[in-house]
């Protein structure tokens, strides 16, 4: 019997969720909805009596203080569906999509002693009051209330016929073979496209050759396994392949061949630096560095762009879940201690009519992504301590979602090794039909059809499941119950077992894998990317103890096979062989391709305006720039303080509202040793020269760590490349240029890369009929590198924050300011890109960084803030309003150097000094009593005593001519900074 329960708030109770939906509807531009009420719906199926249903409602489902309920057999729709006053939309999950509430609700029901409930599904029923048209209603349902990839609006006329539980009729036992050996090139390509394998003709030919050699056609499962293993996502073939790079030198066109871009840039830097504190780099799920004598820390940053474009909540949700599993799967498993999240969206005020077909509105994407991170991070109890959000119209079809996690583990758990005859154990969530083709899907471009074709690649996560896995795993690890571990991420079991069994080979009995529902084919079981699963390699003597640990935490753990030693990947389904592949071919058989790349420096328009006499308004506009303005609305939704380790929080200052540089944590509460986490990202520099974008991002990430009290002695960095289609020469050319910038800056600052990731093919194939990119063009994102940095602090009690502390202190700028306005916020606000991109002098920068660290150690810095987007002006404003103080500043004291790249610029300008984004600069506050010591320390380093702090909350800046060029009260500056994203 199926029962339906509806729960609503009592009259007079404020419906905060309804009020939130009202706001979202206003965002759509629909103004006719006067009120929204939300009703929670449960559908309970099982052999239960009416009295039992009533008890479930009263004791479990409702909160008697604030809620009423009604219930009845499903199909008899309760009265509130039709009314003159409101329209009703009921949104439920599609069959096969995991309902995250089901498992725990079933548990609650069983706790009541009611055993015979088979399933619980939830839905939300929205009552939309007001005089809205059918068309508006439809827009609200499709654009705000639901996402058709995972949800549907319930059609009441068929409600009684619909079953709640998913019902699949898979032809599970039939083994499918693909006629590959006889296929010509055309057919091979067709097979690749139709099967969503995203393999090139060269790769398909190599596969054909292998099967011709062994004398049989592949099963569907074998073909899928190869496609997953060979996907860009898993094997990074662009970075590891050959590239013919065409570039210009002194006006002459040149070319050279790059054999493995990764090895010749990123990895090369790390190898050259050869730091003893780098414990594990590049080969595990995350890079590992030394923390103290007992423990080490690991760091990984992932991207989850394509899924987030289609289903922002689920995409970000599973993105963060995935990177957390990377940490759980590093070494023998690390405990996650913080998250960092960086997003790129189109501006939130992007006009609806300009949206490409099939793309979601950026504000919707942003809200969904933030909710997805909030849900997963908060429920896992991992603080999100750092991040950034950038906006640019070119992200309209392809938002970027970077998720990073830091973990800590004992030094003796860094190494793992699968042993022959170890059992293959899958732990955590069950396997379903969700997330099929994620790895291959992220290796192709999105189109407006993606939302239909690739819907299987989108899922929602279950953070509590993963938290349970974490709790059990840490116990099993500390009892030494397994010998190796890896996460089930993209590619599912195929990828995890394939990777772990690379040397030994493995035999898996697919029917043993626990399933969410019946009817999956062996191929689906093998490649499903269902979330919250890990694969362990367990010695037979320890299996019982291991299973008990997981059982005690209510986590499923199942033996599904063995690492054999045959060197073959052998899969069986109910005893029948469905896959047998030589691991050697699988991992080394991928043909290396040569791609063409070209890079030429673009020429942008230069500044054509003269310096405004009063720059107050320019500062306010810089503070209100979406990239600069306060992200408090986002940060507050994250539990950024769970675990209690925070020392420098992302929001600081007198009212806890100021923007910190790096975040500092003490991972062990009883120790004063700490870590600092930061990031550097700047797409506008890349529009001029990706080389200097990379270098600037590394400078930024490093200097943020220096600003809070870190030191160059131990900073490691991570690279994350998000680029357009690398099969297009210009995209690949800029990628090469960016990688070379990474090499130069890593060596220049002696900061090694320990891990990295690339997400290519971030393009959106636009329908010719739409307004953007007419003519069937594809819309590429700007090449975007994210540099994430982690530094070790010896004593967190010496950490420095960015807010002015006292009136009457001295204010200095450290470092040289040049006319480097190219790619700056100031130019952007004036409709320009410019050409004079900020460069980095690594020698000078190193000296500056080392000296600032010393000053922090000696306690000479009352406040320290790095100069980045928005330049000196924004830095000063942030320091002042965060400290509830003011400042008077003289620009003639700023150490400047004209690079005069621009022939138009004959002399220094106030606006250029204030808004230049030259690298390696800090503004610091020093108490007068420390002046001598401080200045002595900085001898030989560009240092300008530019002014002092004051009690009056006002900033006055005197220009080069001695006249005031900027004057504003800090409250109004703070308002300019807080207003844009204060939703």
């Amino acid at each position: 019997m199926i029962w339906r329960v509806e729960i609503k708030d009592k009259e007079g109770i404020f419906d905060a969720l309804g009020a939130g939906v009202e706001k979202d509807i206003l965002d759509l531009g629909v103004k006719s909805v006067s009120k929204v009420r939300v009703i929670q719906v449960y559908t309970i199926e099982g052999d239960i009596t009416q009295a039992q249903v009533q008890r479930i409602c009263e004791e479990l489902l409702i909160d008697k203080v604030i809620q009423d309920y009604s219930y009845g057999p499903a199909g008899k729709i309760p009265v509130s569906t039709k009314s003159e006053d409101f329209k009703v939309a009921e949104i439920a999950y599609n069959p096969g999509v995991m309902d995250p509430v089901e498992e725990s609700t079933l548990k609650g029901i069983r706790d009541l002693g009611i055993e015979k409930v088979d399933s619980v599904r939830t839905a939300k029923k929205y009552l939309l009051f007001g005089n809205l048209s059918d068309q508006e209603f439809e827009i609200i349902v499709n654009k705000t209330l639901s996402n058709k990839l995972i949800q549907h609006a319930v059609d009441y006329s068929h409600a009684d016929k619909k079953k709640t539980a998913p019902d699949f009729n898979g032809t599970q036992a039939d083994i499918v073979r693909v006629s590959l050996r006889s296929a010509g090139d055309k057919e091979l390509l067709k097979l690749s496209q139709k099967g969503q394998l995203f393999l090139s003709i060269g790769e398909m030919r190599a596969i054909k050759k292998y099967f011709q050699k062994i004398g049989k056609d592949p099963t569907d499962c074998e073909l899928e396994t190869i496609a997953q293993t060979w996907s860009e996502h898993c094997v990074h073939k662009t970075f590891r392949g050959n590239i013919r790079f065409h570039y210009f030198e002194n006006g002459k066109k040149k070319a050279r061949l790059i054999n493995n871009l990764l090895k010749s840039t990123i990895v090369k830097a790390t190898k050259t630096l050869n730091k003893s504190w780098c414990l594990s780099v590049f080969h595990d799920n995350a890079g590992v560095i030394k923390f103290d004598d007992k423990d080490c820390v690991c760091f990984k940053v992932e991207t989850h762009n394509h899924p987030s474009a289609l289903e922002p909540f689920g995409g970000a949700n599973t993105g963060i879940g995935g990177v957390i599993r990377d940490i759980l799967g590093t070494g023998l498993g690390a405990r996650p201690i913080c998250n960092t999240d960086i997003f790129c969206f189109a501006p939130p005020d992007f006009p609806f009519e300009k949206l490409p077909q099939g793309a979601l509105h950026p504000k919707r994407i942003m809200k969904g992504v933030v909710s997805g991170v909030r849900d997963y991070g908060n429920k896992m109890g991992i603080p999100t301590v750092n991040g950034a959000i950038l906006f640019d119209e070119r992200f309209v079809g392809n938002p970027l979602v970077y998720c990073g996690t830091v973990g800590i583990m004992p030094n003796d758990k860094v190494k793992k090794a699968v042993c022959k005859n170890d059992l293959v154990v899958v732990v955590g969530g069950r396997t379903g039909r969700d997330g099929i083709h994620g790895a291959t899907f992220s290796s192709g471009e999105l189109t407006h059809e993606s939302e239909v074709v690739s819907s299987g690649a989108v899922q929602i996560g279950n953070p509590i499941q993963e938290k349970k896995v974490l709790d059990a795993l840490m116990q099993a690890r500390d009892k030494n119950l397994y010998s190796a571990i890896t996460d089930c991420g993209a590619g599912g079991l195929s990828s995890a077992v394939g990777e772990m069994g690379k040397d030994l080979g493995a035999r898996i009995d697919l029917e043993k894998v626990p399933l969410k529902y019946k009817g999956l084919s062996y191929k689906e079981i093998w490649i499903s990317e269902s979330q919250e699963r890990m694969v362990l390699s367990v010695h037979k003597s320890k299996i019982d103890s291991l299973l008990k640990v997981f059982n005690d935490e209510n986590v499923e753990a199942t033996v599904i096979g063995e690492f054999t030693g045959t060197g073959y990947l052998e899969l069986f389904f109910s005893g029948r062989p469905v896959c047998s592949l030589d691991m050697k071919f699988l991992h080394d058989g991928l043909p290396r391709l040569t791609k063409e790349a070209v890079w030429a420096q673009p020429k942008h328009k230069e500044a054509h305006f003269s310096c405004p006499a009063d720059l107050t308004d320019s500062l306010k506009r810089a503070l209100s720039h979406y990239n600069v303005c306060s992200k408090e609305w986002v940060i507050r939704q994250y539990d950024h303080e769970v675990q209690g380790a925070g020392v420098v929080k992302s929001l600081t200052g007198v009212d806890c509202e100021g923007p910190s540089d790096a975040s500092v944590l003490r991972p062990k509460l009883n120790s004063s040793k700490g870590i600092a986490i930061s990031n550097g990202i700047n797409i506008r520099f890349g529009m001029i020269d990706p080389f200097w974008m990379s270098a600037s991002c590394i400078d930024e990430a490093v200097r943020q760590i220096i600003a809070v009290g870190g030191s160059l002695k131990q900073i490691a960095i991570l690279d994350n490349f998000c680029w357009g289609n690398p099969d297009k020469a210009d995209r690949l050319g800029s990628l090469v240029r960016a990688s070379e910038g990474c090499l130069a800056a890593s060596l220049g600052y002696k900061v090694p890369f320990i891990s990295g990731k690339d997400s290519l093919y971030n393009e959106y194939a636009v329908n010719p009929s739409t307004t953007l990119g007419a003519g069937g063009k594809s819309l590429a994102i700007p090449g975007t590198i994210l540099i994430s940095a982690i530094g070790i602090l010896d004593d967190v009690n010496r950490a420095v924050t960015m807010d002015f502390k006292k009136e009457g202190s001295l204010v200095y700028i450290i470092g040289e300011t040049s006319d480097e306005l190219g790619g700056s916020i100031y130019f952007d606000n004036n409709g320009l890109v410019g050409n004079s991109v900020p460069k980095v002098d690594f020698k000078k920068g190193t000296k500056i960084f080392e000296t600032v660290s010393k000053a922090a150690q000696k306690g000479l810095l009352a406040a320290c803030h790095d100069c980045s987007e928005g330049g000196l002006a924004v830095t000063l404003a942030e320091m002042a309003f965060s400290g509830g103080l003011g400042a008077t500043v003289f620009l003639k004291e700023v150490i400047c150097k004209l690079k005069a790249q621009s022939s138009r610029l004959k002399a220094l300008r106030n606006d250029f000094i204030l808004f230049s984004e030259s690298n390696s600069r800090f503004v610091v506050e020093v108490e007068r009593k420390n002046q001598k010591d401080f200045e002595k320390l900085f001898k030989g380093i560009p240092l300008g005593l530019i002014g002092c702090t004051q009690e009056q909350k006002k900033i006055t800046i005197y220009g080069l001519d001695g006249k005031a060029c900027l004057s504003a009260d800090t409250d109004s500056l703070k308002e300019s900074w807080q207003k844009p994203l204060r939703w």
Partner: protein
Amino acid sequence: MSKKVKVIVLRTAGTNCDAETVFAFKSVGADVDLFHVNKFIKKEKSLDDYHILAIPGGFSYGDDIAAGKILANELRVKLGSSLKKFIADGKLIIGICNGFQIMVKAGLLPGNLNGSADSGDFKQTATLMVNDCGKFEDRWIFLKSSGKCVWTKGMDKVISLPVAHGEGKFIAQDEMALKKLKENNQIVFRYCDAAGQKPKYPQNPNGSVDDIAGICDISGRIFGLMPHPERHFLFTQHPSWTRERKKSKYGDGAIVFQNGVDYVKEKLL
């Protein structure tokens, strides 16, 4: 029982403030165990062996259905009699954030409003519902203490603690229940502004009736609050500690744990 103050920090799927709660109790000298609720349900462990029960923050069972609801149900149904005995024995319970939500929904708080200090019949007479702002928020707030709770003894100044929740709006079931709470001195913490005066949003971060942030039972031993004292146990946990650089190692929340342990030493050992 030994001469040490024994604390059990109870966890289950989704608990996530357990480590810092353990750290806080250990730092004030308690002997602390951290166990899964399953161990008590299976009777592998017993509440009788402890003086203080702490239910830490987190998202027990994902806060599915409503925050704290499923663990509240489990405690009521499976451990009800052990809890009754624990309370009757004069022992202490603290619920922080999700722990508070669980206690309120299990009917452990505010407890019997009519004078006697027994646990009553686990009748829910108040709730913690969705914040007025409609979303989860992590922010620092000011609190003023009142009432006669053993956990907040000697707290006369305005203190600062963080809140981090989506469902923290306190509502009593009716006017009468609220009146009783006040009459019985069961309101332990109210949100306030920096000067200790009546707050506005976001100083009252969730829209709680009468600005209530924490309550106790009539005995003052059973205590729940939405703010996190364990997150301001150390001085450097405050976001603007660098403005003062005080010598003290401890933050405003430490005294709560110290009070609990001191009470046990004085009355129960």
